[in-house]
C-alpha cells in the first residue's frame, strides 16, 4: 500500500504572527518556518504504517516555492521514502492545492492520502475534504485513530460531541488531529540519509490546473486589543469585582 502525505511549510507554531504595517498581509520575513504540526503527525502516521508492514512506500509532497524543499527533507528524515515538490511562487488557495494534489494522486495512485486537518497559518481546514471530493474518495477527517484492515480503514474522529468511528473503503483520504500520535524527532544519521533520497520537482504550471485566484485578500489587521486588566489580591476581591464592576455574576 502506497501512502501519500501532503505537507505544508508554515510559520513555526511557537511564533506569534505579526501584521505588516501597511495591512497588506502577515509579515513572514525573518520568521522561523517549520512543517505544519498536523502534517508532521501525518508523516509520523504514514511511517508507522510502513514500520508495521501495512504500507510499502511513503511519499511526501509539498506545494510552494523552493523553500518548502526544506520541509520535504525533514519528512524524508522522518522516514518518507521519496518526495515531490510542486513548485510555484503563487499564493494558492486550498481548492488549488487540492486540485494539484488530485493530479499527484492520479499519477501515484496511493491507497491512502494522509493530510493535516488544518494549516496553522490559513486555519482553512479544507484541503483533505476537497481532495477526497475531487478524487471521489471516502474521507476520515480529524482522526485520532487509524486502523487499516484489508481493503478498509477504520478512522476514529474527534467530533464536537465526542468520538465518532467510521469505516472507509480504500482508497481513502484521512486528515489528522493532534492526538493521533506523537511525532518522533529526526536522528542525525536519518537527516544525513535523507539528503540522498529522491526529491522530484514538478512545475505547478505543467499540471494543467487553473490556478487563478478565487479569493482576493483585501486587508489584514491586528485583532482588537484587550484593554489592560487588573490583578486582584484575593478570591473575595475577585468575586466582588465580578459582581459590581464587570457585572457578569450576581
Amino acid at each position, binding site marked *: 500500500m502506497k501512502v501519500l502525505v501532503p505537507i505544508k511549510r508554515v510559520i513555526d507554531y511557537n511564533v506569534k504572527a505579526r501584521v505588516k504595517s501597511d495591512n497588506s498581509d502577515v509579515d513572514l520575513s525573518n520568521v522561523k518556518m517549520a512543517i505544519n504540526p498536523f502534517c508532521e503527525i501525518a508523516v509520523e502516521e504514514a511511517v508507522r504504517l510502513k514500520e508495521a508492514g501495512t504500507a510499502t512506500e511513503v511519499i511526501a509532497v509539498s506545494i510552494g516555492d523552493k523553500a518548502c524543499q526544506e520541509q520535504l527533507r525533514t519528512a524524508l528524515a522522518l522516514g518518507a521514502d521519496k518526495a515531490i515538490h510542486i513548485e510555484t511562487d503563487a499564493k494558492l488557495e486550498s481548492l488549488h492545492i487540492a486540485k494539484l494534489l488530485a493530479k499527484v494522486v492520479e499519477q501515484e495512485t496511493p491507497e491512502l492520502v494522509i493530510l493535516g486537518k488544518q494549516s496553522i497559518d490559513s486555519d482553512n481546514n479544507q484541503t483533505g475534504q476537497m481532495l477526497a471530493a475531487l478524487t471521489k474518495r471516502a474521507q476520515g477527517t480529524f482522526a485520532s485513530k487509524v486502523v487499516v484492515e484489508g481493503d478498509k480503514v477504520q478512522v476514529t474522529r474527534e467530533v464536537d460531541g465526542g468520538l465518532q468511528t*467510521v469505516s472507509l473503503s480504500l482508497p481513502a483520504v484521512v486528515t489528522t488531529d493532534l492526538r493521533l500520535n506523537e511525532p518522533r524527532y529526526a536522528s542525525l544519521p536519518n537527516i544525513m540519509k535523507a539528503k540522498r533520497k529522491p526529491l522530484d520537482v514538478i512545475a505547478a504550471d505543467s499540471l494543467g490546473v487553473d490556478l487563478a485566484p478565487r479569493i482576493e485578500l483585501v486587508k489584514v489587521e491586528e485583532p482588537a486589543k484587550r484593554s489592560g486588566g487588573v490583578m486582584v489580591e484575593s478570591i473575595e476581591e475577585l468575586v466582588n469585582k465580578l459582581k459590581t464592576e464587570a457585572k457578569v455574576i450576581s
Partner: protein
Amino acid sequence: MSVLVIAEHENGVLKPETAKVVAAATKIASDITVLVAGHNIAEAANHSAQIAGVQKVVAVDDASFEHQLAENTSELVVELASDFSHILFSASTTGKNIAPRVAALLDKSQISEIIDVIDADTFKRPVYAGNAIATVKSLDSQKVITVRGSAFDAVETQAACDIEDRSQSIASQVSEFVSIEQTESERPELTAAPVVISGGRGMQNGENFALLNGIADKLGAAIGASRAAVDAGFVPNDMQVGQTGKIVAPNLYIAVGISGAIQHLAGMKDSKVIVAINKDPEAPIFQVADYGLVADLFDALPELEQAL
C-alpha cells in the same frame, strides 16, 4: 441573492449554532432557506422554521443521512445548490467536514470561519490562530462559507415558516458509520454557555477537575480544558478550547492552571470578561485577563466555590 443554511443538529435536536448561522445569513440576504438533513428530524425542522428570518425549511428525513456523513450529505447539498448564491455551514466539526467537499464539487473556493459579513462578497475571518484578521473578497459566483458561531448573536424566533418535505435517499458506497462515543454531560454546551470555566495542565489529573464542578454548578457554566489537559488524558477531547478545538466567547471565561499559549488564546480571547487563576505571575494568560489572581488553584478553587 439567496442563502442556503445547513442546519446543525444532533439526534434530531436543533443546535443553537443554527440560529447564529442564520444571523450571518441575514447580513447577506433576506431570502434564507434552511436545509435539515438527517433521520427523525421533524423536531429540528420545526425549530428551524421558527428561527427569525427563515423563509423556508427543506427537510430531508432519511436513514441514509442519519449520521450526516460527508460523502452523501455533500451530494445532497450540491443537488440543491443551484438555487442559491451562498451556502452557509456552522464551523462545527460537522460543518467543517462537509462544507469543503461541497465547495470542491461545485468548483468553488471556500471561505472558512467568517466572523463578520462586510457585504455579499466580502467577509472577515481570523487567520494565524487569531493573531490577524483578514478581510477577504470572494470572486466566485457562488460562495461556500463556514460561520464561527461565537461571533454572531443568535436571531430571535418567529411564527413558523413553511416546511417542504423532500424525500431523497443517497447511500454512501464508500463510507460507513460504525459507532459514536458521546460525552454525556448535564452541563450546558461549551459553545453555548454564558460562563465557561476551563482547567489546564495545572489541574494535575482528571479527578481534580471535580474541583471545578461546584463552581460550574453555581454559575451555570460549561467546563472546558486546554489541549495539555486533554493530551494528558485528564478529560475528553470535546472539552478542548482553542485554535484547533472549540471557539468560545462567553460573558465570563475562567482559566485555571492554564499558561495561555497562542493556541489556547485563539479559542477564548473574544470572551467578554476573562479571569485567570495561575500560580505563576509571569504566565502569558494574565496578559489577556481582565482579572488575574496569582494563587495556587488548590487553595483558590474551594474558596471561590464558597464565595459564590
